């Protein structure tokens, strides 16, 4: 099924025998999933498909009832997780200045004052927030706030970046800015795994796609092939907009 032409040194995220159930209802059941290649990987599916749950398992925010998640063959120890970062649907910004939000992370990396300043300025420039450094992060617009959340994730110097529907509450202009930041990060070698229910966004960003429905992975493959010739009836219906579960 998978035929990735480009093999890189990106770490492989592997899921084995994963299941989560609440009150006797299976929410997630992913028996076997490998995310290799350079990405970006888009996890696509309708609401309630288990996309966000899977992402949180990959990031170690949720411990599954059963099964394992590994990155580069290692379980998600604190050290492995330190190489991951995540951007949430609603940006959770600390109640400090824009620069303060970045500084919080840089400080945790143990950088010197001078190094923090340089890196902070570089990041702000990347997100077009240079002139808002001293402003309260809570006063940013939705798009600016999400950009800052991405910058803060990048400030962690991760090798893997997870994004959970980062643009679902944003207007087209802000969405485009976020997508550009994501593509740029991916181009610079960051392994991006992003959840969305927006097919257009998936087409624009994905190198490979994981299609989910009802808590299960129903299809996985390179975006180019999948969007050209969907194998599965389900994905065909989803792509044509007919699947609204």
């Amino acid at each position, binding site marked *: 099924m998978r035929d990735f032409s480009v093999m890189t040194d990106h770490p492989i995220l592997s899921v084995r025998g994963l299941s989560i159930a609440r009150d006797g209802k299976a929410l997630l059941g992913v028996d076997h999933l490998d995310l290799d290649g350079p990405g970006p990987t888009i996890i696509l599916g309708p609401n309630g498909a288990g996309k966000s749950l899977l992402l949180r398992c990959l990031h170690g925010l949720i411990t599954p009832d059963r099964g394992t998640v590994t990155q580069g063959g290692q379980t998600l120890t*604190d050290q492995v997780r330190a190489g991951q970062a995540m951007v949430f649907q609603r940006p*959770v910004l600390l109640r400090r*200045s824009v620069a303060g939000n970045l*500084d*919080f992370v840089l400080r945790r990396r143990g950088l010197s004052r001078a190094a923090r300043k340089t890196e902070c300025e570089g990041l702000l420039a990347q997100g077009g927030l240079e002139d808002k450094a001293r402003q309260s992060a809570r*006063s940013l617009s939705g798009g600016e706030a999400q950009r800052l959340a991405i910058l803060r994730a990048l400030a962690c110097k991760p090798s893997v970046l997870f994004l959970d529907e980062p643009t679902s509450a944003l207007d087209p202009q802000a969405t485009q800015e976020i997508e550009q930041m994501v593509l740029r990060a991916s181009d610079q070698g960051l392994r991006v795994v992003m959840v969305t229910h927006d097919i257009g966004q998936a087409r624009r960003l994905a190198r490979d796609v994981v299609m989910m429905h009802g808590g299960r992975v129903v299809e996985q493959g390179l975006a180019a092939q999948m969007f050209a010739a969907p194998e599965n009836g389900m994905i065909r219906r989803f792509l044509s907009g007919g699947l609204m579960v």
Partner: protein
Amino acid sequence: MQDFTQEFTIALGLIFTGDPELWAIVLLSLKVSVWAVFIAALIGMPLGAGLAVGRFPGRRALIVLINALMGLPPVVVGLLVYLMLSRSGPFGVLQLLYTPTAMIIAQVVLVTPIIAALTRQVVETLAVEYDEQLRSLGVSRLSSVPVLLWDGRMALMTALLAGFGRAIAEVGAVIIVGGNINHVTRVMTTTIALETSKGNLALALALGAVLIALAVSVTGAVSVLSLRGERQGLGHA
């Protein structure tokens, strides 16, 4: 009622012409209560934050207890602190009874539960909001405490002011452990009680007006400062 209004005006006049003895009393009131709130904050904030993020047996019961202690009767606290600090009590050798320190201790006991309970509330709300984000950044439960305290600083300022209000307005405890000794432990509230018992009601009321003005200006000053801080996005750590 006519002559009372007149008396009150005269008393107010006396006060605002800067009677040094009165200002010494005002300053002592401030000193005692500010110290009490400061120390209570050092104890109450980590305690409240610990209750908010900690997970241990008896946590629920402890939260209920702290909430209940917010309503501690000052007289009872005064009595307990008196029994502790009395020369016949366990800490009698320290000779702290009838000193401002004794008054600070009593007020700390009164104020700490207020600050702890309000801090717990603030931090718990914030902890729910920040939970996934902080775990994503690899911040452990314990090291999340200073982050949550700092980010809740505006709401915590209100908690401190609530504590300060309780401390500065309280008379039952400080009169027992302070003894209302002239020039040593006489504060606004005990002076008001004394003047009332002397039948100098107008003077007592005028002193009450000063006390209220004092509480209002402290609260107002802190509020203005924190509002300005908020607007300027202060707190860039």
